[in-house]
């Protein structure tokens, strides 16, 4: 008898979609998420192409459903420690870190943030804003319950053992400093890996001037700048508060280094031009691209629309960013081999999508292989695009390789389909 339970690792759009389908089918789902909130990367996007819908709003009902579905048991701040067994009878050990805030008692009023004496860089906001040692990642995070960062909390790291500012502010007795990390044992019949992607660190490619020239941003930083719930509440301003007048968007950052095209950057970079035109109509915008990769039946139309709004699209061969006398310039060789430059107040880099940070260790823990590019490999050569080489273990979304949101969702639904089909 196969164990009908399923372990889903990662609660981004792919993990959530698969969990909801499996949950609806009546399977017990253990959804493991290493962060303190669910939703993955998609919830960082204000609007998504090509219909410019609000991503947060699109995903929120799914997040709510995940939190309310009786068949889905969610483990936040949790990671997989060990996997043994085989299809139908996997035995999994999970490490669940302490949150120090009760998911049951806390109502998310936020009264505890203000009194916390610690101020930290907010990673969720790409370091563009500060947060407290007790915090939610961003307004609207779900579950709307903060977590305490034990490394930075003065009481938990031992620097000021008597501090209980947050506990005093909490009216719901939600804070528990004595909560401990736990190891949990789960038994499942199938496993789905949906751990998503990371972005190539633009610091590794010094020619783009990231973290050297002042106003060079990565795509994810720019997404957060545009987001209404982000660090500037959606104002497109430079680090000194000024509005940029000329903006360069550079595609394919790290494409040749990684050896693959990420498939989504052309479209989201074009979306950035749309944002910029919308908020700063007089701005001069230049998109520097190599091959325009805009497959999909509605994407070319979107590109044409932006092109017609007066955004320049320049094909480059060589490109670098320099800062001279406080002015940034993009120096490039265009498609005809001619050298030219573009003076920019703001430069946005579209870096390659790379495997998520813990891909390698997770692969080792689970005992499955990665491909040449470091993503989880599937049996694509056998036309089984969501199945790994191990029976009962599946991959969906960007953990398998760069892809867009609908591609991730389709793959998650496919994995759920395969799981339901083998566990029945």
């Amino acid at each position, binding site marked *: 008898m196969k164990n009908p339970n399923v372990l889903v690792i990662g609660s981004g759009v792919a993990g959530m979609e698969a969990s909801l389908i499996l949950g609806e089918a009546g399977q017990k789902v253990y959804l493991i998420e290493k962060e303190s909130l669910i939703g993955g990367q998609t919830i960082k996007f204000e609007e998504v192409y*090509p219909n410019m819908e609000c991503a947060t709003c699109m995903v929120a009902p799914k997040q709510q459903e995940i939190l309310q579905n009786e068949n889905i048991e969610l483990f936040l701040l949790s990671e997989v420690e060990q996997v043994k067994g085989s299809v139908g009878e996997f035995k999994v050990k999970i490490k669940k870190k302490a949150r120090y805030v009760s998911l049951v008692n806390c109502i998310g009023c936020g009264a505890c943030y203000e009194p916390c004496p610690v101020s930290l860089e907010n990673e969720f906001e790409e370091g563009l804003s500060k947060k407290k040692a007790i915090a939610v990642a961003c307004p609207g995070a779900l579950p709307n319950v903060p977590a305490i960062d034990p490394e930075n909390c003065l009481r938990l790291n031992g620097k000021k053992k008597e501090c209980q500012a947050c506990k005093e502010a909490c009216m719901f007795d939600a804070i528990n400093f004595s909560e401990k990390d736990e190891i949990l044992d789960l038994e499942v019949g199938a496993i789905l890996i949906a751990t998503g992607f990371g972005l190539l660190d633009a610091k590794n490619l010094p020619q783009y001037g990231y973290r050297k020239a002042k106003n060079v941003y990565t795509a994810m930083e720019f997404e957060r700048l545009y987001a209404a719930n982000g660090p500037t509440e959606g104002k497109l301003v430079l680090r000194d508060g000024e509005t940029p007048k000329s903006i360069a968007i550079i595609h394919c950052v790290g494409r040749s280094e990684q050896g693959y095209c990420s498939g989504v950057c052309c479209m989201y970079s074009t979306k950035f031009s749309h944002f910029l035109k919308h908020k700063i109509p007089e701005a001069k915008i230049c998109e520097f691209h190599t091959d325009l990769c805009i497959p999909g039946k509605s994407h070319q139309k979107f590109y044409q629309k932006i092109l017609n709004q007066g955004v320049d699209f320049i094909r480059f061969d060589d490109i670098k960013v320099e800062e001279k006398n406080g002015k940034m310039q993009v120096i490039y060789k265009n498609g005809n081999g001619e050298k030219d430059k573009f003076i920019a107040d703001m430069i946005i880099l579209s870096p390659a999508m790379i495997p998520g940070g813990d891909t390698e260790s997770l692969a080792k823990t689970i005992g499955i292989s990665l491909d040449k590019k470091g993503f989880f490999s599937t049996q694509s050569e056998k036309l089984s695009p969501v199945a790994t080489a191990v029976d009962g273990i599946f991959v969906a979304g960007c953990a398998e390789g760069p892809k867009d949101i609908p591609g991730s*969702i389709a793959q998650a639904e496919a994995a759920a*389909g395969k799981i339901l089909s083998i566990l029945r």
Partner: protein
Amino acid sequence: MNEKIGVYVCECGPNISERIDIDRVLEEISSAEGVKVAKKFGLLCSNDGKNYLADEIKKEELTHLVVAACSPREHEQTFMNVCLEAGLNPYLFQLVNIREQCAWMISDKEEATRMAIKYIYAGISRVTLHKPLLKKELDSIPDVLIIGGGISGIEAALCLAGKDRKVYLVEKTESLGGMVKKFFELLPYQGSNLAVIEEKIEQVQNNENVEILTSSEVEDVRGFLGNFEAVIKSKSNGSETKEIKIGAIIVATGFKLFDPKNIPQYGYGKIENVLDALEFEQMSASGKILLKNGNPPKSVALIHCVGRNEKGYCSKVCCLYSIKFARHLQDKLPGIDVSEFYSDLCLPDKADQDYFEEAKKKGIHFIRADNLELKEKDGKINVEYKVAGGKKDSIAVDMAILAPAMVPSEDTSKLAEILNLPLDETGFFKEVHEMLDPISTPIEGVYVSGCALGPKNIPESIIQSQAASGKILSSLIPGKKIEPEVKVSEIREEFCTGCQTCLSVCFYGAISFDEYKGISVVNEAICRGCGSCVGICPSGAIRSKHFTYPQLYLEVLQALR
């Protein structure tokens, strides 16, 4: 009036109690018509709170319940469950949001209190008009109809068929396999040799739970999720028709290629040895890559993006199969000169770029060009083109292979009509939500997968078929009943003039016209309660259960008073 309405205000800890004067609210509300009790509680969503509320409903014999607390998104379902447990129909309950809409929005306590009172009045006046709605349960058939026997349809059949679920696989040609069977090979990282395909075909043919109906077409479909009826017409059996009952449908009717004759400058159909991609696939499959004169070609031009501009989209797969062609030509005809003419190289999958780099190393020329024109010259094909910067150039080749855009297959629009499915502006089937629900259609229980939705590669088609299967496996469980939406539209016969305006706005195909009575009829099993028909009905004959005009009117009136 003999309502016994209970109004309960949640303090939400300090969230509501500190910013709204709850005692004043209760004082005011308790005298409202029909209100039997008005009380406050610390945290109604807590277990204590829920038990308290259930006890109150029973003790006070409440006929209606109003809870003034947080957003319905947070706890509407929580309190509906409390009602159910306490024996009160959950639709006789109204949640009034005085946290997000008053306490958190209005800093002045006096003003917030005033607004909260208004909103609670609005809730009370609305709830008195609520009708108890009952959930219905319908039997469902787990069997599935798959239209199209290509790789998408085959994959879905394999995923779905089981001892408690029969699959009907309808294919209009004589055999299974679709377009893929015409290919001489697949990309090495996407199936490589065709044995993988043959294996899948064999599996589906040997599956006793799959009934394969070749040379057959779907003539008619009626019904809704769990209970569809379809008429299948067989061309081989003397036009015999067969009626089947199924619970869900997958449309996997694939694509065809854009006809390059529509763009005269490519010379297709006029110049000898200008082929389209499918013709070259078949020529390679035959093992004889030859010119019309019987000699093997010494030089070949591969022309990408044929019809891209005309159709307005990139078909995604052409760059890769053109590279596949080039590499195959080099393997089979050593010394051959191969040039690829492209506009943008579209290599979005993780293994694509390596495949391209290898081709480049093998000496295949890649030329970015536009304004291509093919002309016959001294028995050869002269490819004239413009490179970046506008410079003109040309080469003469023995053979040219065109990579035309993928377009919807022949019977797409006919099937769209039969199934009442929308098409998008490119003529492919339209998904219900391009981002979040890429394989569903507005008709519940009907899915589309593979190239019927738009150009894609083989793995993506397979993924979509497995995805559609996942949706069906989770929503149509053998022996389990389905629960349609209860807050649906209803048409009052006496007011309906039979104008049929509602039919045109119903996204879900839930309304039909009763010719005999001359009125529109809502199928409650299909209606999802969006209310479009209510808004458009010129005679006011349609109302939305739980959102009737009097309910909305009184609610708004009180909120604005």
